[in-house]
Structures are given as C-alpha cells and as structure tokens.
C-alpha cells in the first residue's frame, strides 16, 4: 500500500516537472518545426537566475512568502530576454532550413549558452533551499512528502490548464493552431506568421526558464543541468508526439510513472526504463502517441 502510494506521488511529482520542461519544447516544435536543443539552456538559465535572486533576497531579510513571486518573475525576465535575443537576433535568419540542420543550429546555441552561463554565474553551485523548506512536509500513511512538490503539481496543472484554454478557447490560440496545422495557408489568410514565431519562441523560452526556476529550490544548481534535462524532455515529447501539448502531458505521465515504478522496484533500471519506453512507443507509433501522421511527399 505504502509502496503504491510512494510510486504514485513520486511519479506524479516527476511527471509534472517533466511536463513543465517539455511543454515549451513541444510548443516551439509544433509552431516552428524546430526541435530546440537550447531549451535545456533556457531551463538552466531559469534555474540560475531563480537561485541567485533567491539567495540575494533572503540575505536581505525580506518577507519569505514573496520569494515564490520572485521565482516566477525571474523566469519571466530570463525567458523574455533570452527568447527575444535568440529568436530576433539569430534564429529568424535560419528559417526555412532542413529540420535536422535546425537541430544542429540549436545545438550550437546550446554550446554557446552553456559557457555564457558559466561566465555569468561562475562554476560554483547555487543553493536556494528556502522556498523548498518553507512549506514544510506532510505525512501521508507513514510517508513524508515535501509540500513544495505538491505545489509543483498544482502549478503544473495550472500551466497545463492555461495552455489548453488559451490554445483552444481564445482567438489568438486558434490562430496559433492554424499556424501549427498549415503555416503557408495561415500566412496566405493574413496571419502574421513571423510575429507568431517570435511570440511562440518567447513563450517557449519562458516555460523552459520557469521550469528551471521552480526546480532550483529543490536541487543544487550546477553547470550542466541543462544537458541532462534536454534529453529527458526529448523522450517526453517524442513519446507524446512532437508538437502536441496534450501529447507532452500524457508523455510526461508515462515517463514519470514508469520511472517512479522502476526507482522503487528496480533502481538500476531508472535510465533504461525512460528510453526503453521511448523506444517501445516509437517502434509501434513512429509519430508518437498524439501526432497526426503526415503524408509522404512524392
């Protein structure tokens, strides 16, 4: 009973964390057809700016509850700056190239950002544990869970809801969907595709940074965290179907729960399980679970 509870809670916490990271990645792919490797750096930048600001904030003896707003603010500013800088300053000159070449372009950006992070924040680890410990822990059935993790689940649910609502229930969301569906046709009907691209990229960058900022209190922020995370996010979006936000949600749940199951039953299989699941899904549904299969060009 306890085992099932532990697997469930750990799995859902991990899933919500995965979804936060993967949502931005899949959104950018859906609209722009760019599998953005630099997304890992957005995550890292979010984590670093969150952690360093929290450190300064608590050193100044300010009211602790506002630190959560600070995390959101840090992610918003970091995502806006980095997203705009990369999309407007560089990426827009590369549109129209092959998808695989675009992976390499973003790989180059990732390499540059990784070192930019080291230059800005140094190589020493940052700790911002205060927001994590502030919320305390809850005992359920003899097991102790951090309340911060439950908050993470709620935030993810909120993000998923907002994303779903704005994509399906608002005018601009429907315009965005039309671009996802057929970029050229949307452009022909008067949609400013370039503007949509910029907005999407900034939102995606913000989501990546937001995921990082929210993770920062629970970990020690060290160089290289983005590299580890991006490959996990890839697994999630590939399972769900590239470009599908709903798919990323399901993908995150599948990966999160199967990882939690493996961690509790067979710890040595932790990494193997994630990519094993990814391989299994790809073997039977190459397009992922929720993507629409496209026609082959002749």
């Amino acid at each position: 009973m306890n085992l099932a509870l532990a697997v469930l809670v750990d799995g859902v916490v991990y899933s919500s964390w995965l979804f936060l990271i993967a949502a931005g990645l899949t959104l950018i792919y859906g609209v722009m057809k760019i599998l953005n490797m630099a997304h890992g750096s957005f995550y890292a930048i979010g984590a670093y700016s969150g952690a360093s600001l929290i450190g300064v904030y608590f050193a100044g003896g300010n009211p602790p509850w506002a630190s959560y707003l600070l995390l959101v603010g840090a992610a918003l500013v970091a995502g806006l700056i980095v997203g705009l800088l990369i999309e407007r300053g560089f990426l827009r000159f590369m549109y129209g190239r092959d998808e695989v070449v675009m992976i390499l372009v973003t790989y180059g950006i990732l390499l540059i950002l990784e070192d930019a992070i080291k230059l800005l924040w140094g190589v020493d680890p940052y700790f911002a544990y205060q927001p994590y410990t502030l919320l305390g822990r809850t005992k359920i059935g003899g097991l102790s869970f951090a309340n911060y993790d439950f908050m993470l689940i709620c935030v993810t649910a909120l993000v998923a809801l907002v994303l779903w609502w704005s994509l399906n229930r608002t005018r601009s969301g429907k315009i965005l969907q039309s671009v996802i569906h057929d970029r050229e046709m949307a452009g022909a009907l008067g949609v400013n595709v370039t503007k949509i691209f910029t907005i999407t990229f900034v939102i995606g960058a913000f989501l990546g940074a937001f995921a990082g900022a929210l993770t920062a209190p629970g970990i020690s922020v060290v160089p290289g965290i983005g590299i580890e995370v991006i490959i996990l996010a890839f697994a999630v979006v590939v399972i769900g179907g590239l470009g599908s936000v709903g798919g990323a949600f399901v993908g995150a749940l599948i990966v999160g729960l199967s990882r939690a199951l493996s961690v509790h039953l067979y710890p040595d299989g932790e990494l193997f399980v994630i990519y094993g699941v990814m391989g299994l899904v790809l073997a039977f549904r190459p397009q992922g679970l929720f993507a629409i299969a496209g026609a082959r060009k002749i």
Partner: protein
Amino acid sequence: MLSKNQIFVVAAAALMILAGLVMPYWFSFLVTVALAKGLVVLGLVILMRAGLVSFGQGLYYCAGAYAVGAFSDYFQTDNVLLLVLVAIVCGLVISSIVGLLLSRYRDIFFAMFSMAFSMILYGVLVKSAALGSSDGFNVTKPSLFGWAAEFNGTNLLSYWVAIILACVAGAIIWRYMRSPMGMTGEAIRENEIRVEYLGVSVQKIIYIKYIIAAVLASVGGSITAMTVGHIDPEMAYWTTSGEFVFIALMAGTGHVAAPLIGAVIFELMRTFAFQLSPYTWQMILGIALLSIIIFLPNGLWSLTDKFKKGAN
C-alpha cells in the same frame, strides 16, 4: 596499376607512419583519437548522403570500446588484430538487429530513435557494476603478437593501426560510394518514393548503410579504447553523438577524406580552444558550428570545389 590518387594516399600514409617516430607524443595521440572519431564520422557521412542524420552513433562507438575492454579483460589478450575484429563483430551484430527497426524511419524520427538506442546503452552501462558503472574501467595497451612498438618510451602501435585502418576504410568506402548501391544514397535523399518506383528496396539499402556506419563506429570505438586506455559510459551519451554530427557537418560529405581530415581539425581546434580559454571552449566550438552552417553549408570540403573552380 595504381592511379595517381592511390599512390598519393599510400605515400601520405607511409609518411604519417614514419613521422610517428619523430612527432611529439601528444600529437600522435591527438591524431589517433581524431582518426578514431573520423572513422565514426565516415560512417555518419554515408548515412547523411542518404539524407539520414543519426544522433546515436555513440551507441556503436561505445559498444565497440566496451567489447574490446571486456574481451581483453576476460580472455587476457592484448592482440590488436583480435581486438579490432571483436569490435567489428560487435558492431555488426548489434546493428543488424537494431537496423531492422531503424531502417524504417526517416528524418527527425530516425535521429530521435537512434538517440534513444544510444541512451538505452548509456542507461544500462551507468548501472552495471560489473562494468564499472559510471566510472568505466581501464583497457590494456594493445600489442601485435607481443610486440608493443615502443619507441622512445611511447607506444606507437595504436597510432599506426589507426592510420592503416583509416586508409583501408577510406579506400573501401571510396569504392562503395562509387558503386551503384552507394550512389543510390543520394537518390534516396532526393526522392525516396521515385527510387522505390524504379524497383529498388530503399529499406534494404538504408539497412546496409546503417550496418556499414555501425561497423565503422565500433572500429573507431575500439581504437579509442586502446589508445586512451580507459572507457566509460559517456561514450554512449548523446553529447558524444552530437560531436560526431558536428564533425560531419563541419567537414562536409563531399569526399571520404573530408571526415578524417575534419576530425583532426576538430580535435586540434578543441585542444587549442581548451588551452586558450578553459571556460569558453564550448562557446568557441558553438560559434564555429554556427558560422559553418551559415557560411559553408556544405562543410569545409566545399572549399576545395571553390579552389578547383578558381583554378579553371
């Protein structure tokens, strides 16, 4: 009768082999590791000419290295011929199974799926205590029937083996690229369905290309294992595979020599970038990658075309 090009290659290889006796150890080491990576990239180039980019060549690079390590450890042998053969067999066996599945995939799905397989190997190796987990283990230095080719205290055998293997592989692939099956690669990249209408099984050709690439990658891994003397799961991590794609893109797919020379340039660039600024060497590599994508979309080898056109 040898053609002019063949004489040139044999002469260059002989010169490189002799030069090993006088060149500093760090340089022969760098060239050996670079050629090992060059072999992996050569395989990648074969796939790229067919329009497929594998982000998982690290799978075979690592598998070849671990096959060498485990075999030499278990059978207490350091015979270089045997070890390379083991790596070849290992690459052949794995790729002929994995390839059955992967040869059905294209574009970004091929890239992602191949990456998934290499990450599976990484995940397994990191957790297997018998193979040293994330630390890996040491591999014995190779010898040729007991002869270690020691000169002035440095072991030159793996350097020579690397040069000979690179030349042999280069010659075979050069022939292959001119064969009808090798040339079908470009046709598949341009339009796969038309190739099928002409009565060719695209899947079968990609399957074979995949196996060739895998064998080259595992040979590269075996050379690295014997040269560096240490192997770890990092060889299967996606950043290693990313590096191979980086070199392939930088070098270009125009000629078999491009990946081999490109790998040496890459290693030199990385070594000097690391020397110059230990904190920003990745940034330098990233800027180099982006500049090449922007200014030389067909890689460094396309410079030779420009040179030839200029000469005419």
